[in-house]
């Protein structure tokens, strides 16, 4: 029996660029006690779907057609006042960022009490009792004490648990979770996903979960809906979806994953980007990027068809009326020519780090006496040879980013020694670094924050050449910038534009171009792909691998994404609380982890195949 039935839901938003249509005739249903996952990359309309369900569209947005039925009740026909009773009541929602979803000046108990009063009419001891039970249900220790805590006293995972408790307070029949674990560390993510699954089973709720992570889908979904450019393109049971994804887009998503592709060479990418949603679409929305397109795709929008494995697909390939459906699987497996990795790796390490420590003093009192230290990085040593990649893996707050910055003297270390190309550098002094600035560069996580929005791309790329005095001639500098743009897969004429005109993946290429401009030998990559979609991530990873092979670059790759590590790393150092707890060749660490923490970390990663299965 269907709990939530969405049919032909369409949304449009007025904007300066004209009418944006983020949702076009989306239809799906969530059954009682079922988890339905909406999967898609950023901008595909999955979050807009939930906002439309809750009738919380942004300013200028409106639902142009369709119906949303919850337990047989038409939500779009309710008055705003009635709708407020439904929100937080029958229909509850958890957001991505637990840090900003809780009011920082109210205690947990007050915020829970408010929901209980609004939706259950509870107050006084009854409310307190219920609040304690809810916190207990989401696995918070000593729930009675936690009621008096303020959000800042809780960790990220605890906050998300409190958010879940608040969502459950109204005894919802449908729980909407919008990327509930994206902002959390993998070990916490595993716990939260497990909790959600348990709660759903014990309470018989329906759950609508939004994610971009195939691993999460594998772990929790009963059924999956894949969204692309405001449309649902495939609806399938989990088993069907993972055994044989039907839509070309779904197949591409699988192929773009870096997991377990150590020796597979280049990753499959999806050429182009998602079309702007202001477009008036005529044919299939995926046409431009589809490897299996034919004449009909650009002319006629495909209808729903049944794929051989049972799922519903919006693709002409499965149209029984068309003769000989060419369900071409041939193109989506990546080019499996294993590349011979350059063996010319010298034995002397390019970079050697000995006993690096970064301690931040905690100052207290009137005279700012140093009362203690935050030991962000506490005595780590490793080495890296030219042309190799060392992955620094760990959860947030373990000191991996600080390590990266200390290597480039962007953060001053407290003690330790760095040998770079045989040259000794003092990481705790500012002097003596100018000489190696061009040899060591950095690529940052957020491609939107790492490029100055007020500078042209040319100025950004040339900045290093100018600052380091490598190329004083204007024409030559420009020529160098143009050459580098081509090298990272962009066009030379893009130099005269501003960063905001580029997509996330393109910006990350610009950031890489900026680092490459000064001919570095080592690039510290601080989570360079974690802000990108899977298909774009694949493009950037391919680029990085190509550059490494052609230029013999060494990468220090800081990440929490084990899939990326598997694809790119030669060696792995696992960091935990400022220390390296395990350090060794990638295959050894991944297959035979020695340290407990490494095992926990690897076990928590939601994966498509287990590592053990791969070994066979």
């Amino acid at each position, binding site marked *: 029996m269907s709990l939530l039935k969405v049919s032909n839901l369409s949304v449009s938003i*007025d*904007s*300066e660029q004209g009418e944006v249509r983020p949702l076009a005739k989306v239809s799906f249903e969530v059954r009682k006690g079922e988890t339905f996952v909406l999967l898609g990359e950023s901008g595909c309309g999955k979050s807009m779907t939930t906002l439309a369900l809750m009738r919380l569209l*942004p*300013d*200028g947005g409106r639902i142009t057609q369709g119906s949303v039925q919850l337990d047989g009740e038409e939500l779009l026909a309710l008055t705003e006042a009635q709708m407020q009773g439904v929100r937080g009541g029958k229909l509850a929602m958890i957001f991505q960022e637990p840090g900003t979803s809780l009011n920082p000046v109210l205690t947990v108990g007050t915020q829970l009490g408010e929901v209980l009063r609004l939706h259950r009419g509870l107050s006084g001891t009854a409310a307190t009792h219920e609040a304690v039970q809810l916190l207990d249900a989401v696995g918070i220790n000593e729930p009675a004490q936690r009621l008096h805590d303020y959000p800042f006293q809780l960790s990220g995972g605890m906050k998300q648990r409190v958010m879940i408790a608040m969502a459950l307070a109204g005894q919802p029949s449908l729980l909407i979770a919008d990327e509930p674990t994206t902002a959390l560390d993998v070990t916490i993510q595993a716990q939260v996903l497990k909790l959600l699954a348990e709660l759903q089973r014990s309470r018989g709720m329906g759950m609508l979960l939004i994610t971009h992570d195939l691993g999460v889908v594998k772990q929790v979904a009963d059924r999956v809906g894949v969204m692309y450019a405001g449309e649902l393109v495939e609806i399938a049971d989990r088993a069907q979806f993972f055994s044989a994804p039907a839509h070309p887009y779904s197949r591409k998503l699988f192929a773009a994953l870096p997991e377990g592709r150590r020796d597979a060479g280049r990753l499959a990418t999806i050429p182009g980007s998602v079309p702007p949603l202001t477009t008036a679409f005529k044919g299939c929305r995926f046409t431009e990027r589809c490897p299996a397109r034919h004449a009909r795709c650009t002319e006629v929008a495909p209808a729903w068809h049944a794929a051989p494995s049972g799922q519903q697909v919006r693709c002409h390939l499965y149209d029984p009326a068309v003769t000989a459906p060419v369900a071409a699987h041939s193109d989506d497996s990546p080019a499996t020519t294993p590349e011979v990795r350059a063996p010319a790796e010298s034995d002397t390490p390019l970079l050697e780090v000995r006993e690096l420590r970064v301690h931040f003093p905690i100052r207290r009192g009137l005279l700012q006496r140093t009362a203690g230290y935050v030991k962000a990085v506490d005595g780590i040593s490793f080495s890296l040879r030219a042309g190799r990649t060392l992955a620094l893996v760990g959860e947030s707050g373990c000191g991996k980013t600080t390590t990266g*910055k200390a290597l*480039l003297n*962007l953060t001053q270390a407290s003690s330790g020694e760095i040998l770079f190309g045989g040259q000794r550098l003092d990481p705790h002094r500012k002097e003596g*670094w*100018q000489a190696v*600035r061009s040899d*060591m*560069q*950095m690529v*940052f*996580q*957020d491609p939107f*924050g*790492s*490029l*100055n*929005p*007020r*500078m042209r791309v040319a100025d*950004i790329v040339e*900045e*290093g050449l100018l*600052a*380091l005095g490598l190329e004083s001639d204007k024409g030559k500098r420009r020529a160098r910038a143009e050459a580098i743009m081509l090298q990272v897969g962009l066009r030379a004429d893009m130099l005269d534009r*501003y960063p*905001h005109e580029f997509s996330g993946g393109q910006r990350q290429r610009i*950031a890489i171009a*900026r680092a490459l401009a*000064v001919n570095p030998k080592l690039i510290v990559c601080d989570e360079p792909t974690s802000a990108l979609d899977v298909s774009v991530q694949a493009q950037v990873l391919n680029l990085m691998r190509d550059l490494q092979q052609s230029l013999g670059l060494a990468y220090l790759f800081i990440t929490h994404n084990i899939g990326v590590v598997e694809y790119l790393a030669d060696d792995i150092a696992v960091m935990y609380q400022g220390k390296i707890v395990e350090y060794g060749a990638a295959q050894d660490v991944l297959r035979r982890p020695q340290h407990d923490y490494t095992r926990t970390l690897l076990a928590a990663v939601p994966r498509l195949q287990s590592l053990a299965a791969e070994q066979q």
Partner: protein
Amino acid sequence: MKPVVLISDALFFLLIACSLIGLWYASRKEHLRRAWHSVLADRVAMGALAVLLLFLGIALLDSLHFRRALEPAAGSTNSEVHYAVELDSVLDVLLHDVKEHKEKTYSAPFAHTLFERQTVERPDGTRGREFPRLKYGAAHLKNPETDKTADLVQQALRGVAVAGAVWLALAAFISAGVARSQRKPFLAAVSATLRGCTPLAWDGLLWAAGLLLLVLVPLLLMADSYHVFGTDRTGNDVFFYALKAMRTALFIGTLTSLVTLPLGIAFGIAAGYFGGWVDDAIQYVYTVISSIPYVLLIAASVLLMQAFIETHGAWFDTPAARADARLVALCAIIGLISWTSLARLMRAETLKLREADFVTAAHAFGVKPLRIMSRHILPNAFHIVLITLVLDFSGLVLAEAVLAYVGIGVDPNTISYGIMINGARAELARDPMVWWQIAAAFIFMLSLVLAANLFADAVRDAFDPRGRTALRRRRRVVA
């Protein structure tokens, strides 16, 4: 005739040149052009802009100074030309009649007699106390009691007709521009302009201009034969004074920023960027400055400056130049005191930007601090400078009035709203009350400050990344 450029004139022209350069720069930078475009797409902002441009025009005319050549003294064979001590401006020349129409003392708006009884000698030789006729006000009428209303109505209608004609010409001019840029037929462009269906809100500008013309043109026409805002104690036309005071007000509002901007930007960014003892030192300075009551600080500085100017009287060849020096010094003093709020905002923004990845990337290239501050931090914090500038303007105009009222503002010979309000202190205590001087100051200041505030709001909405809401942006979606 000898052109004279006072210090304030020079600074004023410099400021206008700076703004023009700024506009040229903005038109070449895409993000600035877009933001300004959205300011000008706001109907209210365009209306306010019309008012501000008019006032700026008045102030500009009043800033072109010269000294009139005196007629050679009779019998003097010397060919050397002597110049009047008094300074004239182009505005004085344009409103020559209004300026020269001096009565004996107070007269009410549109009056034909003085406000008070005077002892006069009648033609028959007797003496008596009566309201004497004004020398200029309604002097062209034989029987003012009976004819004045008709004459006023006639003049007003003529004024409205002229205003209408000017407005139609303006509307036609703008529509022609719209027709050209949008490649529409002229009539379609006219209707689009008036209905507000153009990318820029020309309708706001037109309606505001219409209102201004409707009020000002009849007033200007009538100012020749009447005192439309009455006369003050020494018989000067108040309308003329109110127009002259516009320069002082605009001047204080804008020139002060010439002092605050460099100080606020440099200290704010340096404090935020370097941190440590630089930050401490700058913070101590501005905390101390902003803890002293500003009237006290300004009073002390103004008195010092006054003493200085008096001991160096030989530096100034005319009294006007001396009054002008005092005005400029006042701006400098207010500026030296009010850079703190801008510095605070800049410091906070710099603290945020300092941690941005693109600044870290610049560090990784070993870019020098000065260059990081000028290339990476200032352009990204510039919206704050602009917003502070336009928001502070009206506050400064009002501050001038307050300071003059307290008696520590501009030179008493300078015409300013503050001086007018200060004079009205005694006038309001009289019975019957003399209300027109303060009314004139009130109306003109209100229009200036209101227009400035409305424009500032639009600028803030367009430039402040946080203040931008979808609702506001949606306002002008051209169909």
